[in-house]
């Protein structure tokens, strides 16, 4: 079975460490916040200028001046700080964020990522994605392994305009966890009940399959 959105978030949450500053992109990455292990403290950075994003507000706490980068109303947790956009991106570009999790349309064996623009469709903008992929050492891309038509999104070379070049080393899809090393995807884990053959069939870029590929457990 392919991983559900929740399982993908749960799997990524295992990469968190106590004391991490983390930026979560919009969509499935946001769900990672629901799976921070008990007893572990992480600070979520929201690039509009909030370090220490808390839960959504109650009706009583609702405040138009407190939003996250997805423009949702949020709260600040104890220990949070708030600052301007240049300061926020100094944290990102300066490499101070311990883990960045974001979505993508395509990734390739060179660690290139395309996530913001489909030619011929309306382009809304890259927001902070180009800064995040250029600035972070530790990035996990969360995406489905193949399109609804079965086309692989893990490619020899991205076909869409890039968000960043040579910057992705780790990818979690609904089928597998992979790392990018020496110009190839390396299959590290597979989703429960998903065969290596299915992953091979749905990976267009060069794929290295070790002798033993452990199954994820939930």
């Amino acid at each position, binding site marked *: 079975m392919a991983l559900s959105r929740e399982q993908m978030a749960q799997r990524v949450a295992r990469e968190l460490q106590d004391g991490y500053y983390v930026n979560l992109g919009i969509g499935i990455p946001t769900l990672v916040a629901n799976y921070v292990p008990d007893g572990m403290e992480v600070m979520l950075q929201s690039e509009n200028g909030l370090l220490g994003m808390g839960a959504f507000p109650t009706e009583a706490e609702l405040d138009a001046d407190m939003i996250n980068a997805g423009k949702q109303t949020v709260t600040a947790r104890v220990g949070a700080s708030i600052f301007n*956009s240049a300061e926020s991106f100094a944290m990102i570009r300066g490499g101070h964020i311990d883990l960045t999790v974001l979505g993508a349309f395509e990734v390739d064996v060179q660690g290139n990522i395309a996530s913001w623009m489909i030619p011929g469709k309306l382009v809304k903008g*890259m927001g902070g994605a180009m800064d995040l992929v250029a600035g972070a050492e530790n990035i996990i891309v969360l995406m489905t392994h193949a399109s609804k038509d079965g086309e692989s999104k893990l490619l020899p070379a991205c076909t869409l305009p890039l968000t960043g070049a040579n910057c992705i080393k780790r990818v979690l899809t609904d089928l597998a966890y992979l790392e990018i090393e020496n110009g190839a995807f390396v299959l590290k884990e597979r989703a429960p009940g998903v065969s290596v053959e299915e992953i091979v069939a749905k990976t267009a870029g060069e794929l290295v399959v070790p002798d033993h590929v452990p199954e994820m457990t939930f």
Partner: protein
Amino acid sequence: MAGFDKRVNSYAEALDGLEDGMTVLAGGFGLCGIPENLIAEIKRKGTRDLTVVSNNCGVDGFGLGLLLEDRQIRKMIASYVGENALFEKQLLDGELEVELTPQGTLAEKMRAGGAGIPAFYTATGFGTPIAEGKDVREFNGRPHILEHAITGDFAIVKGWKADRYGNVIYRHTAQNFNPLAAAAAKVTVVEVEEIVEPGEIDPTQIHTPGIYVDRIICGTFEKRIEKRTVRT
């Protein structure tokens, strides 16, 4: 003292001197911390052919979206513009020019503009469409692209409190691009929720020192929420 009294009495006075074809830097992220009354005044004035620099372009009927209704914006420099049907239409019809800029690069361009730094190198955007035609240089073994600073003729800024010296503080995440816009324009206009007596704001807590600010006006704000999310 009068030389340091930045207060003006009307929105018309606040935007006196804003002319067709000028570049306007606007604070705000989505609809959070936008100078909503100053935007409405630009609409009332009917100033045209503006280049507007802002992270986003409001929504239909509110914020910078208002300036699209009478086609007052010729060019938009922004990082994300998706919230707006009229924007889409004018873009597809070729009536509006858009320069999409990564959010951090946009912030840094404004910061640099205010700080007198004409350009800077950044890794952001290397290898992507936004790097086309830009100078590339390697630092620490990594390619970077040259990005130019942004300055404006006017900055329109939303603060929380200010004193008559033009010292401003922002409230929560309504800060965003506001202090950057404030520092990077020839004429900086700040609208606030409250004008307080000098000394009431602790000097160590001031976000935008008065040196950057030319005009202060006190307004009332709708503060529309774009995505109302609550927990039960």
